[in-house]
């Protein structure tokens, strides 16, 4: 089980959306983390054979995926970022239809659809029309759809967008379970989505992977660059301008700041254990997102 990208590049007229990415994916969960426009969707669409790279090659077990065609798509499950469905179909019908175009036999499709509806918590809604589902429920139907053919390569473009915290936890557990026998690549803006479940995290910026590693590896390289210090209220503004600050908390007598800096930013600053959010902020330069405000 090996999906290999070599020097994969995608140029649009003006921008290079994906710029010479090389990596090898094997069994496990991969998190693709990046700001808007980093090129995540473009990369994923190429992995789903929806777009051809301008240059470079993508191979599955050594074979070019575009040459494999159906043989590769058979192994593929994809949840697009802009996930469209058939509004007048019921959830169940929708899954049966996608099952049929994925080549499942009707009986197998029925069974699989029922199992998945239970797994993603849509069984109660199975006879509801898709257009009547809430945003998060639609997303869950999308996840179920991607899993119908029990794919070896599961590609999820922002699967957690619109899910409530309960569902997000449930989703994380589902993905962990699923990753035992397949490659899962998921993109997100939300650090906590991948922090615990992704075996490997790619930080993507301007079409390139600027950093990759396990969550520990990424945080380790930030060791000694995260500081906690208490500053007087009137100086808070100055610190915010000068440093990348990952957290501000008003406390009695001033502000408690979490600052990213090579040197101690102030006397009395205490080194902190870096988190993945700190890494994100450090590399992407702006304010890191919290759970519900994507960057």
């Amino acid at each position, binding site marked *: 089980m090996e999906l290999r990208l070599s020097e994969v590049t995608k140029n649009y007229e003006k921008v290079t959306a994906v710029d010479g990415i090389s990596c090898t994916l094997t069994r496990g969960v991969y998190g693709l983390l990046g700001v808007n426009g980093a090129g995540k969707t473009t990369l994923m*669409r190429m992995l*789903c*054979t*929806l*777009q*051809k790279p301008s240059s470079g090659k993508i191979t599955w077990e050594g074979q070019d995926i575009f040459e494999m*065609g*159906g043989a590769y*798509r*058979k192994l*593929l499950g*994809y949840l*697009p970022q*802009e*996930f*469209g*469905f*058939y*509004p*007048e*179909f019921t959830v169940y*019908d929708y899954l*049966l*239809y*996608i099952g*049929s*175009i*994925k*080549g499942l036999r009707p009986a197998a499709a029925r069974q699989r659809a029922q199992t998945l509806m239970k797994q993603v918590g849509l069984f109660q809604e199975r006879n509801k029309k898709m257009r009547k589902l809430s945003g998060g429920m639609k997303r869950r139907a999308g996840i179920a*759809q991607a899993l119908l*053919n029990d794919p070896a390569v599961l590609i999820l473009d922002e699967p957690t967008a619109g899910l409530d915290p309960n569902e997000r936890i449930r989703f994380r557990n589902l993905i962990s379970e699923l990753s035992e026998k397949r490659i899962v690549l998921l993109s997100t803006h939300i650090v906590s989505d991948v922090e615990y479940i992704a075996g490997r995290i790619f930080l993507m910026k301007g079409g390139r992977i600027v950093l990759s590693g396990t969550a520990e590896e990424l945080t380790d390289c930030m060791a000694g660059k995260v500081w906690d210090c208490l500053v007087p209220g009137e100086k808070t503004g100055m610190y915010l301008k000068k440093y990348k600050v990952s957290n501000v908390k008003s406390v009695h007598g001033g502000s408690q700041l979490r600052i990213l800096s090579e040197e101690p930013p102030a006397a009395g600053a205490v080194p902190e254990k870096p988190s993945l959010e700190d890494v994100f902020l450090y590399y992407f330069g702006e304010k890191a997102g919290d759970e519900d405000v994507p960057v």
Partner: protein
Amino acid sequence: MFRFEIKKVFSRTGSRIALGMLVLILAVICWFAADVSYVNEKGDTEQGLSAVRSLREAQKEWAGVVDEEKVRQVIRENTRIRNSPEYRSEDVRQQEIAYSWGQGIMDLRRLLNCFYEENFRSYDYYLADGLSEEDAPEFYGNRVRLLREWLSGEAKDQFSDAEKEYLIREYEELKTPFYYDYMKGWEQLLEYSPTVIMITVLILGYLVAGIFSGEYQLKADAVFFSSLYGRNRATAAKVQAGFAIVTGIYWVQIALYTAFVLLYLGADGANCPVQITLWGWKCFYNISLWQAYGLAVLGGYLGCLFLTFAAMLTAAKSRSAVLAVIVPFAAIFLPSFLSDIPWQNLGKVLALLPDRLLQVFNALPLFELYNFGGRVAGAIPILFVVYVVLTALLPRVIYEVYRRTK
């Protein structure tokens, strides 16, 4: 897959409304087609089924071979009516009574107006009144004579010698004497067939336009094309669904229309030649009424398939259902605007546009001819050949275009 494609089409509210409209419009057309009136001997106008019965009865009395003797009888009967005091009366009711007597020979009297015309292109409603029984023997000969005179006079430069010969030969080959029967059912059926067919095509165009643009509009294309069968079987299922919907609805529509009109007005006269009608007396295709109707509905089906496939192709290429819906509209309505362009070969082009297939009824009596290395053929057979080929190719083209989209 096929089943779900069909389901996608009919689950849209718009499609259901369109189907409802189709049924409604068909009902209206049937109502028009069934509009027959009859004036009884008291001079009162009857409507509805009783009028149909009376008219049929009156015309059945004149059914039979239209030989010289029959022509004589018609002229005699017409003269009798014209000379009756009722006909000459100033009183409207008396006139109506006189009219009522003429309903049995109405069709044949009209034919006299045509065949004894001075000139191929004129029509005089009162011409039959000036005929006498001595004119009867010239009845069939007149038709060919009028054509010959027209071809050597007014239309001298319109046709090549081969075409002229062809027309005259076809005219001479027409089997005479005609057989006459009550034929209101077939006449009405033919007359309204273009309307039924065109409306059906427009609505079918609307129904199938979404098959190939729906995924893009709904943004469901990514899942579709990244699936195992997205670029082959599922695309083929779309083409098949389009074909099935068009075929099913077209023939149900035609069956309903035909059954209603023929059951209501009667199917008598199926074997009468088209040349026995006012509409078709000049027609150089020597066919009967039922054959003409057969051509009309088959042509309609072919045209319908061609235009709806063209709409599907447009949708597959442009990803827009709106553009696709416009295709059948343009095909039906543009040719009438084009006809104003002053270009000598325009007629030859217009006669082969797909809208002609939808209105075989209107195209049958036209003198549209084509030459191929000395052989002459009429536009209708050429239309059929050309569009059978094109229509057979289109599904493949749609399939290839759609499956290759990026």
